[in-house]
């Protein structure tokens, strides 16, 4: 080799400085995002944790999780002591001391008691919508990836599905209201007056009168919203399964459906579950789609109370955490007394998402470990 000294650098190393700068900028961005996330989570935990956690055993304020939402009454008694009691205890207090011993009373809606109603509502909505979305989404993905011949039409279908992911959630809410709440078909003995079309079947009527504001209407709306993500991710997962598995299975004499069921779907399942974990968090957190289709601000009983069977549960309205948070923030005057319910709800909501995601990840890992790669 001639001039081996060329291998040695002379003077300032500009390239290294440039590389360092690039690394610093990229790193700064990443850590900035982490910092913002930490600030948000920190604030929620700082304000929310004291509502839920207690210094003494069992360390969790179970009443906040298990009691229903009540109106909070804040007043002074005759001796000037300030009381803040939820409606149920307030009535007992009034009976005991008499209404004349209450001064400077103010009431705060939804701020007393617990948030059991919204927790139950959100859990039901999330579970139901993910089940619906997985059923329809995976079916569609199987068709698109395994059966459909690639052509102009299928490309349009794919494009439409992708675009659906960009539709604002409030539009899904209005769509759900127009379709599921007002127009979806039901079997009924007495069609409603506003039924769009009632078809007599002899023993009953098939009436396009909608499902009203109900758990099933809300779940269907949420399912529509997360469908594009589920379909796209499932299709990608199915396509990632090696062609060799399909050919080997077909060459052994398996039918197409059998091959999909035994040799494609099980191996795509971890990927499908990953996409549903993301969708699950999104479905749980959306407010706009459930505003018109299922959620109510106040409800005195759980969905299964007074319901006739599982169908009755599906027809009931529910409270939901995101909507509860919205109500507390935007629809009642804010004060020190509403903050407990507000921060507590947000904190519990975060914990719920965390729990859902953890369970799904554990489930996915179990499915994955059954595959013997």
């Amino acid at each position, binding site marked *: 080799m001639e001039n081996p000294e060329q291998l040695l650098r002379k003077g300032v190393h500009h390239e290294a400085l440039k590389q360092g700068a690039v690394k610093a900028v990229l790193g700064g961005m990443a850590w900035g995002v982490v910092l913002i996330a930490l600030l948000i989570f920190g604030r929620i935990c700082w304000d929310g944790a004291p509502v839920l956690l207690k210094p003494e055993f069992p360390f969790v304020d179970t009443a906040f999780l298990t009691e229903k939402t009540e109106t909070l009454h804040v007043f002074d008694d005759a001796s000037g002591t300030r009381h803040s009691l939820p409606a149920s205890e307030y009535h007992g207090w009034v009976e005991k001391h008499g209404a004349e011993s209450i001064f400077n009373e103010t009431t705060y809606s939804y701020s007393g008691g617990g948030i059991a109603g919204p927790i139950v509502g959100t859990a039901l909505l999330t579970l139901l919508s993910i089940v619906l979305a997985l059923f329809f989404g995976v079916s569609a993905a199987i068709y698109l990836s395994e059966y459909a011949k690639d052509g102009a039409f299928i490309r349009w279908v794919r494009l439409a599905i992708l675009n659906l992911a960009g539709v604002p959630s409030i539009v899904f809410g209005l769509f759900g209201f127009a379709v599921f709440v007002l127009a979806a078909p039901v079997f009924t003995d007495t069609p409603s007056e506003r039924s769009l079309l009632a078809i007599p079947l002899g023993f009953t009527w098939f009436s396009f009168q909608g499902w009203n504001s109900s758990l099933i209407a809300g779940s269907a709306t949420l399912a529509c919203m997360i469908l594009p993500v589920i379909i796209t991710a499932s299709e990608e997962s199915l396509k990632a399964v090696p062609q060799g598995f399909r050919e080997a299975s077909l*060459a*052994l*004499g398996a039918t197409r459906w059998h091959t999909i069921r035994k040799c494609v779907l099980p191996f795509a399942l971890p990927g499908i579950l990953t996409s549903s974990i993301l969708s699950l968090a999104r479905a749980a957190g959306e407010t706009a789609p459930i505003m018109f289709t299922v959620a109510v601000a106040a409800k005195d009983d759980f969905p299964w109370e007074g319901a006739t069977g599982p169908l009755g549960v599906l027809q009931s309205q529910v409270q939901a955490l995101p909507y509860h948070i919205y109500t507390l923030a935007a629809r009642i005057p804010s004060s020190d007394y509403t903050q407990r319910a507000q921060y507590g709800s947000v904190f519990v909501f975060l914990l719920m998402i965390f729990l859902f995601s953890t369970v799904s990840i554990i489930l996915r890992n179990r499915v994955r470990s059954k595959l013997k790669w």
Partner: protein
Amino acid sequence: MVSDSPSAAVPAISIENLRFQYGEKQVIHDVTLDIPSREITAFIGPSGCGKSTLLRCFNRINDRIPGARVTGGSIRVAGIDIARPDLDLQTLRRRVGMVFQKWNPFPKSIFDNVAYGLRIHGEKDRSALEERVEYCLRRVALWDDVKDRLKSSAFGLSGGQQQRLCIARTIATRPDIILMDEPCSALDPLSTLKIEELLLELKNDYTIVIVTHNLAQASRCSDKTAFFFLGKLIEHGPTTKIFTKPDQQQTESYVSGAFG
């Protein structure tokens, strides 16, 4: 529909004037060839000469490739035209097994891999499955290596073992014909040798068609050899004749290593 013990008179596979296209590209031109029963027939020729495509026509696995179609001629398996609309494709593929170039065991246990084909065809009895799985694994000389870890992943085996597992999986469904698409092209010489020994052992019970790029392999283990070039069948006959005194100049240059 396919007779159980094919007589020597009816060839296992008979191909007549077969033409095949991928889209607009014709890859097989008027191939006529009979493949005898209980023998090993080797397809040789340079890459892209259509030999793998032809092999994949025998169990109609090409059906799933968009644009791939037979445009003329016929293939008969044990006398039955496999293009017939009333053909039971699943039974055809069970009777005409296939081993692929890249070994492709399922990400399941060793046992489940071999039992897969049996389960498809409705075998549920545990002891019958176990018996058949053991038989097949013994047949491919894999039993002693894996009998203690039947429940562990097939992916833990070496390449050669995985390919032998795939052969076991194929013979589990009791095929009459086994198609092999370059089964040793990604294996080391020792594993290749084992597979070749296995082929010679299997030909007592099965008709084997093997596509290979390895001329030495074709000359070592096949009874008949067919030489393809650019989608045409140039010459076919007993292996010794093809390799020692072929009729065609092209064949001679290929087997002597002048090109390809």
